[in-house]
């Protein structure tokens, strides 16, 4: 058998990649290790990655199923609920945003109408405005509408994005014009062309947008932070902050919570990495 490492530059590349990857992965490895440690071990310090004795009970404690080992009381936290909130809000946002973006992108990319380019330019121009500049007045609008401390206050404003429209428009522009012309000749209506021709062809773009949106919303912090003060509506990031401010000294619990938060993302990334990488590259390079 011929060994693959027959030249020096490959060996150097392999070792460099391995070392860099190891360095970048270290914090995560420490996080998982710390989530299985006991309170005493964390306080004792030391550079141990592996817990001297595995304490899996940090996880049930977090979900309120077991009393906390040091003080013996149950945590007053709704961690399971926060997890559900995060998934639910991100899912609802993704669904609505992909739908509205696809519809609008169809109007921008496949239909010709007077004023189309000016309207699209308006969309593009607002993409330049910092999110912060929009947050302030949007919060005032939410106060007027009475949307504070509700699910729809989190879902509705985040469901329309110029970015999604832009991404899908770019994707749909890449579909040959002959496709929908053939459909029109066969007597299809615009709606049928949209659902039966363009949407299936734009599927990779839709999946990429859906994933990017889902992940962005799952990590969303600023908006839920200012909109909510009732614990039962918290998504995970805001919940983590709450946990950190209440039980901040209990590093093992915090690390368990962080591990739970990060895990779905890692799983999503490993499964869908092809789509994600393409979506990011597409949204970026053509921007």
């Amino acid at each position: 058998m011929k060994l693959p490492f027959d030249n020096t530059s490959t060996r150097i590349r392999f070792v460099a990649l391995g070392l860099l990857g190891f360095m970048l992965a270290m914090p995560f490895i420490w996080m998982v290790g710390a989530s299985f440690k006991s309170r005493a071990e964390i306080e004792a310090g030391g550079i141990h990655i592996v817990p001297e004795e595995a304490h899996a009970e940090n996880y049930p404690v977090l979900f309120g199923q077991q009393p906390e080992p040091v003080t013996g009381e149950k945590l007053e936290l709704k961690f399971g609920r926060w997890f559900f909130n995060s998934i639910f809000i991100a899912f609802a946002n993704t669904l609505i945003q992909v739908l509205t973006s696809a519809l609008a992108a169809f109007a921008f990319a496949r239909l010709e109408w007077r004023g189309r380019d000016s309207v699209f330019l308006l969309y593009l121009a607002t993409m330049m405005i910092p999110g912060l500049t929009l947050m302030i007045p949007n919060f005032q609008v939410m106060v007027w509408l009475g949307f504070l401390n509700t699910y729809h206050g989190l879902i509705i404003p985040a469901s329309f994005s110029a970015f999604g429209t832009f991404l899908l428009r770019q994707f749909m522009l890449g579909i040959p014009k002959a496709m929908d012309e053939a459909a029109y000749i066969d007597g299809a209506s615009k709606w049928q062309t949209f659902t039966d021709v363009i949407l299936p062809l734009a599927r990779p773009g839709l999946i990429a947008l859906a994933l990017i949106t889902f992940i962005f919303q799952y990590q969303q912090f600023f908006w839920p932070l200012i909109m909510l003060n009732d614990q039962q509506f918290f998504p995970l990031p805001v919940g983590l902050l709450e946990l950190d401010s209440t039980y901040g000294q209990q590093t093992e619990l915090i690390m368990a919570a962080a591990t739970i938060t990060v895990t779905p993302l890692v799983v999503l990334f490993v499964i869908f990495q092809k789509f994600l990488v393409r979506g990011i590259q597409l949204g970026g390079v053509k921007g």
Partner: protein
Amino acid sequence: MSERPARRWDANWPAAAVFLAPNFIGFLCFTLFPVLLSFAMAFHYWTLRPHEKASFVGLRNFTDVLGVRALDEPHYGVLALYMLCVAALIAGLIGALLSNVHQWRGTRTGGALICLTGAAMVFGALGGSAEHHTGVFAFWFNQGTQGIFFGGILALICGVAIVGREDAEWDFGIGLGPGLLIALAVFGFWSLGGPMWAAYEPRDARFWYYFYNTLFLMMGLPLAVTGALGLALLLNHDLPLGPWRHRAPGALVCAGLALLCIVLGFGLGWENIGLFAGLIWLFAALGFLFNIVTFRTIFYLPQFTSGVAVYILWKSLYRPETGPVNMGLEAGFNAIGLALVPPSWLAEIAWAKPAILVMGMWIFIGGQNMLLYLAALSNVPQELLDASLVDGASRWQRFRHVTWPQLAPTTFFITVVSVIGGLQGGFEQARVMTQGGPAGSTTALSYYIYNKMFQDLDMGYAAAISWVLFAFIFVATALNWRFGRDQEVD
């Protein structure tokens, strides 16, 4: 498009309206209307307090953010000269945008000037810190010195890059006018600085401090982008590991070694060493199985998962007493026999910003920028590389003259996005890790805006700051656009 009959465009109107409606209504309600509202707010005293009505105050919010106030009796001459310098700076920048900056920027004279300025700043910073010399870390204790030092380093890098350009010449281009104007303005700021600060103070000194913090936190960006390019170059080609039947035994051997290391480590009581070695072999096994994708996944994970969870993780890493960073440093210091105490990172004014900077590097180095560079690298035409190889170009020459120019649009895009993101960023780190402290040293502008909104409940002032921030972003983007475009022409 104008030659098309107008009727066909009008015929599509109803359908287009139906398709666009859901998105457009949301766009009107949550983007366009808020933009107008925000603009209106900036000119009002607008508060979240109940029972207080908004009142029109004109430009007061903006003058409060940007303006100065006289300390004792006003010195209008100094103020007028200073404003003249500001005007000269603005005129110079606009001129630089409009005139052919490319030539001015490209001359080695300009590069040498920038180099000299950078070197002066670095020496000034080092000399200034030597005055109150108390130990190895003394240099870091002075906030201002840090800024000057890093600014100088940045200027040096830029200057060397310009002087090192092979196509540049030692002459003065047509764009010298704006350059001179800017230089005059900077000289004016420098020499007027003393009397100006003796007679006036900024109305909102915190705004400028937080602006400096924001810029400081952005200083990791050039390094992170360079790192991203380096990683992309490392990841560009698959490792030549051969076909499946060659890789599978390799993967098996590595996995077996990983298992052996872990079992042995735990058996002999060296858990850490066993685990480390085992993990490295595990990576090797994955590398054999999935080749380059393994590494791309690992490199991308920090940015992909970045959010509150990751910030909390780093907060624990930086914990002074029990955090692994300090534990590692202490062990290292002890091993070499140095009697140093590691800093308490996020709790120390001098070290909080650098600590967050390092975390930012960890997040960004393998992130989206790397993916964008990878995409761009795969689009570099192979013929060009082959042709240069035939011409006998060295590896560096091939990168410098073939690959790098082809990457210019991507570099430009990354720079623009990074600058925009950097100026707006810093909120999450500040809120989660330090709450802006110690003594406001990690407060970025975005966190200041948040505080103005929810602590002082002063929406009008917050809106005014956000518009000033928008202006900064706009100027930075315009400069990037102008200079980046020139780069593309090269």
